[in-house]
Structure formats: structure tokens, C-alpha cells
């Protein structure tokens, strides 16, 4: 009897160890894949980097040389535009949600914001095409910025709302008990308390939209020239990666990797420190 139960115990222990190993293998696979991806981007991307890469516009089909300055400038313009549009709207909507948590319309609004956030970004692209590119009869940096803002607004609204909810209720109550109006309470107490969090989520939002391609295909469209005009088509880093890797030229492939390296570095430089900070404040 005792021999039999110790055999059972051994079997259970062996099963337990096997389970741990089975869990560890996928983790190793996932770590390996990410390592492979980052390594490949770095090794292939570094080869493309030189002064021209950052300072010259792209050359026409098949001509060697040139750079991706037009896409770098375009990315900055389109992303800034989207941020300028999104931030005020997102703060106001998040305030609405935080000030009226019990209203039915606020609950509907939250469902809508979540739905917008889950919307495939290509849909935003063709809708903005219909709204802006068709009437203006031209692809434009402006349309690209608006399309990206549709991705950014729901993202910022949900994260900023959470920040407002985390501001201690006692702050608000203290201000209100002194007879301060609601709007002064928001401007003087809530917003300053939430400011670091708002900046943090804006940073994450910028990192997210900087890599978006699908909403820009039919709005910003891309352009080989260095341009800062909002009414004209403009290229961005993701657009140039997509355009270049589809081409048959090795030189362009290499530039696509260079652009990918630039984009990934930018995104990770923002997200990694912010994710580290987020975890610290939580724990």
C-alpha cells in the first residue's frame, strides 16, 4: 500500500515537472522570435544608415543613393497633427466620463470609445478618404493627421479617464468644500494632479500611431518630395517601408530596413521607459 502511494506521488511530481517544462518551452520560443526580429532589424537596418539617409529625399525608381528625409519629416508632421487634434478632445471626453460616471449616456459613450479603439485601422483610412480626400480632390498630410487622430482619440480617452479616476476623491472634495466651482476644481486641482499621467499616455499614443500604415494608405498616400504642406500628399516611415519592400531593388530593401530600425528605435525609446515607470507606480 505504501509502496503504491509513493509510486503515485512520484508520478504526480513527475507530471508537475513535465508541466513546468511544457510551460517554459513556449516562453523560450516567444523570447527567441522577438530576439530574432530585433536582431534582424538591427543588423539589416544599420547597413542603410549614413548621413544621406537622414538628410536627402528619396530618389526616383532605380536610381541609387538618396535617403528618407521626406518620410522622417512627414512622420513628424502627421503625428504632431494627430496629437494636436486628439489631446484636447480626449481630455474633455475623459473628463465627461469621470464627472458623470453614473449617467446612461456615459456608459454608452464608453462602449462607443471601446468600439472605436477596436476598429480595424484600415476602416478609418477609407472613411477619411471619403470625407476628406474626395472633396479636397487630393491626398493630403491633413487627411493623414485626421485619420491618425481617429486612432489616437479613443486610445487617449480610455487611458486618461483611468488617470482621472485615480486622482484621489479627497482632492476634489476638499476643493468643492471650499466653495470652488467644478470647473475651477478641474483646472486647478484635477488636471495638475493628472498631468504626469496624461503626458505618459500621450507618449504611448504617439508611439502607437507613429507605426500606423493602413490609415495612411488612402489619406497621406506618400510622396517622394520633402514637403511640409498640409494640403499635399506626404510620406511617412511606415509608408516608405511598405513602398520600398514591395519594390524589386536591393538598395530600396536596405532602406526599408533602415526605416524600420529608425521606427522601432523611436517606438521602443518611448514605450520601454514608460512601461517600466507604469509598473513601478503600480507595485
Amino acid at each position, binding site marked *: 500500500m505504501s509502496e503504491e502511494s509513493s509510486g503515485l506521488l512520484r508520478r*504526480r*511530481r513527475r*507530471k*508537475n515537472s513535465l*508541466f*513546468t517544462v511544457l*510551460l*517554459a*518551452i*513556449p*516562453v523560450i*520560443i*516567444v*523570447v527567441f*522570435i*522577438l530576439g*530574432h*526580429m530585433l536582431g*534582424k532589424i538591427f543588423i539589416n537596418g544599420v547597413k542603410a544608415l549614413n548621413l544621406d539617409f537622414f538628410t536627402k529625399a528619396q530618389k526616383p525608381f532605380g536610381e541609387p543613393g538618396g535617403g528618407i528625409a521626406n518620410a522622417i519629416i512627414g512622420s513628424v508632421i502627421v503625428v504632431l497633427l494627430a496629437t494636436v487634434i486628439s489631446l484636447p*478632445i480626449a481630455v*474633455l*471626453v475623459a*473628463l*465627461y466620463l469621470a464627472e458623470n460616471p453614473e449617467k446612461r*449616456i456615459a456608459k*454608452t*459613450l464608453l*462602449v*462607443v470609445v*471601446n468600439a*472605436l479603439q*477596436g476598429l*480595424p*485601422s484600415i*476602416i*478609418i483610412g*477609407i*472613411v477619411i*478618404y*471619403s*470625407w476628406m480626400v474626395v472633396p479636397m480632390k487630393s491626398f493630403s498630410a491633413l487627411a493623414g493627421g485626421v485619420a491618425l487622430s*481617429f486612432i489616437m482619440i479613443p486610445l487617449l480617452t480610455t487611458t486618461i479617464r483611468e488617470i482621472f479616476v485615480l486622482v484621489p476623491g479627497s482632492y476634489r472634495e476638499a476643493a468643492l468644500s471650499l466653495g470652488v*466651482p*467644478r*470647473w475651477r476644481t478641474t483646472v486647478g486641482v484635477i488636471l495638475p494632479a493628472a498631468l504626469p499621467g496624461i503626458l505618459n499616455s500621450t507618449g504611448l499614443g504617439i508611439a502607437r500611431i507613429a*507605426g500606423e*500604415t*493602413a490609415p495612411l*494608405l*488612402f489619406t497621406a498616400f506618400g510622396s517622394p518630395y520633402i514637403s511640409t504642406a498640409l494640403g499635399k500628399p506626404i510620406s511617412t516611415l511606415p509608408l516608405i517601408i*511598405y513602398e520600398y*519592400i514591395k519594390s524589386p531593388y536591393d538598395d530600396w530593401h536596405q532602406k*526599408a530596413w533602415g526605416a*524600420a530600425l529608425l*521606427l*522601432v528605435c523611436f*517606438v521602443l525609446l518611448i514605450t*520601454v521607459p514608460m*512601461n*517600466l515607470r507604469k509598473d513601478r507606480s503600480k507595485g
Partner: protein
Amino acid sequence: MNDRRYFRILSGAALVILLLFAAILLTLVVDSLPTMQAYGLSFLTGRQWNPVTQEFGALPFLVGTLLTSFVALLLSLPLSLSVGIVMGEYLRSPFLSKAMSVFINLLASIPSVVYGLWGMTTVVPLVQKLEIAAGFPPYGVGILSAALVLAIMIIPYMASLTSEVMKRVPDSIKDGALALGATRQEMVTGISLPYIRSGIAAGVLLSLGRALGETMAVTMLIGNATRMPNSIFSLGNTLASVVASQFNEAESDLHRSAMMALALILFLVSFLTNLIGRKIVGKSEAANV
């Protein structure tokens, strides 16, 4: 400035969001009307998509979308569930668990077009070798390549959700199991996993929503063929990838309208999966409080 105006401004902003959402839906419906008038419901069952003969049926892309997403989900689940369980239950040291969560966030923040770039140069040649070995035409690109990369892309969502709900399993019932002599594996499979099954179901739906609408990486890897896929080695297209690859080249209004109709289908499907997924998350949150 007074409080009345303050609340009016806030309500105005809220209204703008509601109107925008309604306007997006309205635009999709209005712009796809010509297609609905031309085909009615047979648009959903039509097997031909030919801009030259002006014939548009969505079935190949519906099949392509479902096939790619489900294969991706199937490939992804064992990986993401394991990562989630390890993060939620096994990594006790704060350093390791933070490192793992930063790592998973890294995976989530890499842009789709970069996944596509990596997939074209890494996954496609591997799939090509597999196709040669299995006796299929060695395109490399196709449903399988798209699904493989998609599987990696949805890991972070499923893994972080699993680890979140895993951490919410009450210590009392886990300690109870351990006190009765259960091994860690018996505790995880017997107590924790059944406890979080609704969370896992929600995670599956939310990642499915992601997979259905994912555009760039899939467009770069799926081969962009408009005929019906007949195996996972076939070239294909998803609702999103056909719009991405053909919209700028569309010459007729009907072609453009047909793509608006595809986008409308995508809108409805992703809206429903998200809604149901979030309902389940909300319910399990309420039940656990």
C-alpha cells in the same frame, strides 16, 4: 466661465465622439449602397471578384479572413496561454515578472508593417521550404505565412489578459489546494484555469477581433489573390487586405463601393467580437469583486 458652460463643453466633446462613430457607420452604409443594390445578399455568397468584368462577390475574402484568423488563433493559443500562466503564476521575483511584462509590451508595440517586413524575409522562405517538402506550389506567401505572423502578433493581448486574470484568482483557494497536497500543476489546471475560464474566453474573442482586422502584415504576406482559397497553402486575401491592396487602384465606382461593403462587414464583425469580449471581461470582473 461657469459650471454650466463647463458641463456644456464636456457634453459637447462627448457628443462629437458619438456623432463621429455614427458618421463612420453611416458613411460605410451609404458608400456600399450601390453594391447592395447590385447584388443584395448574394454579395456575401459570390465567389467571383473581378474588377475587369465588374463582378464582385465577397465569399473568397470572408473565407480568407476566417481561415487566417482561426489558424492564427490556434497556433497562438498554446504559446500565449503558457506565457500568461508563467507570468501570472510562476514568476514570483519582481525583477523577472517586470522583465517579462516589459518584454510582452515590446512585442505589442512593434508596428504591423515591421512584422510584415520580418515575415517576408524570415517566415516566407521557411514556408516555401515546407511547401516544397509537402508538394505544394512553393509560393512562400499565402494563408499560412500570414497566419504564422498573425499568431505572433496576437500573443501579447492574450498573454497579458491571461496573466491579469490569473493574478486575480484568490490566494485562499490556491492555498487551500496546496494545503491539501496538490502539486503546483494540479493547482493550476484544477483550480486556477477553471476559475479564469471566462477571462480566457474574453481573451480569445479580443485577440480574434485583433486578428480579423489586422491589415498591413497580412497584406504583405497573404499573396493578394482574389480566388477562393482551398488550403492553408493557398494564396488568399482577407477583408482588410483586399481593401489595402486594391482601393487605390480601383477605377470604377462599383469596385470602390464593393470595398466599402467589405469594410462595412469588417466593421460589424469586429464591433460584435469586441462588444461580446468586453461584456465577458466586465462580467468576470464583477463576479470577482
